[in-house]
């Protein structure tokens, strides 16, 4: 990847590519998931290729791209139920991910997890999580482990604005600070917790104020501006690598789609959504690229590459093997395995 010292255009193009890949991946997944789950008034379509709840990060790609551009493969990451972007940005293979969403044996999780549990431990992506805020203590433990083992790895811990009202947020930040752990907390604030505007549920001045109340340095950034995220992440990650302990980023963004793919999100004000579409991070990065003199054809090329990559992923997922029922009994536990069925 183009480092911090490469030209601004090269760096931004790199970040743009990550975002374009996430967008293409999620659009394809959404298409394959129509009627995936009965909720939000939608009825289930039992033939949907992508089953169950599918949480899209459309509009939030800049956070994943900007933060992960500052991580090494050996660094770790924990995510939420909305984890495709983090996983791709951390370096996972789109085909293996799409296979997972299709419930195939070659998926990242051998078909056992699906979208909500997408993970790629090989690139340090320790898992999406179906329980809000549950990734926080796990990330803290991974950072504690790195410190104990004398590893130079750091951990990035993503969570939503809704998660800051759950207990593990307090416990995890406190723990990270007292043990001075190498961890970057990233609150990806898309203003909603499912159908509920988070603001009314959150007391005080918000995520960064809470982090400061627990002794962590905290920065608020425009999470739709991938350059701003990249710059802030670079600085925070540098501080962590220099041994300054945990850092906190509060990234302001917006969830352009519904909570899950079947959610029409009619509870939102249309004007609010339209305004958000105006500040779509891809659009913003596109005009920045143009301003930096990157020709439109170059951007179109990147878009086309992303599309091609995802088409290949879809084809791979269609072709891939469905797990045998027998595989349901593997990877439960070693002790007593095989004795019971």
């Amino acid at each position, binding site marked *: 990847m183009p480092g911090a010292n490469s030209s601004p255009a090269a760096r931004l193009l790199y970040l743009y590519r990550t975002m374009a890949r996430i967008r293409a991946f999620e659009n394809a997944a959404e298409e394959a998931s129509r009627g995936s789950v009965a909720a939000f008034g939608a009825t289930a379509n039992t033939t*949907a290729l992508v089953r169950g709840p599918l949480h899209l990060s459309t509009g939030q790609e800049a956070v994943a791209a900007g933060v992960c551009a500052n991580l090494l493969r050996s660094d770790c990451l924990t995510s939420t139920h909305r984890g495709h972007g983090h996983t791709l940005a951390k370096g996972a293979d789109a085909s293996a991910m799409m296979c997972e969403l299709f419930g195939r044996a070659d998926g990242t999780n051998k078909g056992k997890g699906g979208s909500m549990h997408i993970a790629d431990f090989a690139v340090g992506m320790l898992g999406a999580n179906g329980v809000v805020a549950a990734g926080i203590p796990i990330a803290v433990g991974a950072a504690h482990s790195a410190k104990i083992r004398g590893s130079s790895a750091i951990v990035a811990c993503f969570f939503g604005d809704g998660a800051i009202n759950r207990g593990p947020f307090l416990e995890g930040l406190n723990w990270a600070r007292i043990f001075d752990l190498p961890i970057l907390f990233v609150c990806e604030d898309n203003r909603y917790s499912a159908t509920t505007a988070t603001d009314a549920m959150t007391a005080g001045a918000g995520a960064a104020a809470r982090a400061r109340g627990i002794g962590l340095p905290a920065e608020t950034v425009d999470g739709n501006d991938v350059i701003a995220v990249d710059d802030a992440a670079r600085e925070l990650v540098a501080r962590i690598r220099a041994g300054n302990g945990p850092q906190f980023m509060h990234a302001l963004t917006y969830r352009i789609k519904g909570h899950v793919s079947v959610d029409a999100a009619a509870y939102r004000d249309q004007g609010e959504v339209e305004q958000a579409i105006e500040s779509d991070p891809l659009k913003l990065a596109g005009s920045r690229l143009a301003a930096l003199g990157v020709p439109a054809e170059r951007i179109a090329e990147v878009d086309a590459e992303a599309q091609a990559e995802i088409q290949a992923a879809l084809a791979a997922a269609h072709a891939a093997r469905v797990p045998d029922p027998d595989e*349901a009994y593997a990877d439960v536990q070693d002790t007593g395995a095989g004795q019971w069925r």
Partner: protein
Amino acid sequence: MALMNYAQAACKALAEAMRADASVVALGEDLGHGGVFGQYRGLQQEFGKARVIDTPISEATIVGAAVGMALTGLHPVVEMRVVDFALCAIDEIVNQAAKNRYMFGGQGRVPLVARLPIGVWSGSAAQHSQSLEAWFAHIPGLVVVAPATPADNHGLLAAAIACGDPVIYMEHKELWGFQGEVPAQAECVLGKARIARSGTDVTLVSWSRMLHTALAAAEQAAQQGVSIEVIDLRTIWPWDRQLVLESAARTGRLLVAHEAVQAAGFGAEIVATVAQELGIPVRRAGAPRIPVGYARTLEDAARVSAETLLLELSALVNGDGRGRSMA
């Protein structure tokens, strides 16, 4: 009688209770927009935000606050979305709600209903698919309810709200859209099971969504000339021991089927009781001891099918002591 689905039936019960008694309130995430399954539709509009309370994502405090409300004159109905998230509030359910009345020597009551939907939910994988009724049956102080039909989701929810004890109320996530006739007046009594189909050869006890699988298996068995009595347990604790023992004594054989993991599931309790009391052949059918996987094939491996039940039933009827005895 009116035709409605399982979610609407619960909504009707709650609305009726709230109309009748100003002390009944509901709290949980996303209730204002009707709940993600429509099981609260229209309630905030009718009763206002003070009584149909949208909460932060704070499961521990949702239940803990409900305990405080229940101790001070309210009848809270608490929404946990899926039982899996209620695992973030287990201290509050077990150490606080269930034990409060006892450990304070009867000074207070905790009349709260905690809705903890259970069951495999198509494509939702390991963290949204558990059935943990056996856990709560094990905890003194708790009532545990698992309705299988819209009529019962109306009647049992009404009874749960009225009963004065902390109730773990377990709806099934794959039943929300299930249609059925619902009587105008709630008619359920906690602790009473129901004979859902009469029969003479085997007693098959079940509850929640598995009841429908049991009924399907009984229908197929009937075509093979075997007569199955299907009991819908409805209340897991206190369970209707008398009805089950009477039926099992009559048929001479017992099968208990549930969607929860078989190992240490509630089927073990029923089977152990019947074996001890009657000494008749007994069997259980529950899920294997594996998490629920995402892919359909894996998910299906974690479900108990009508075919499995037929195999178990025929093992019982043919006096073949061995089978898929432990999973």
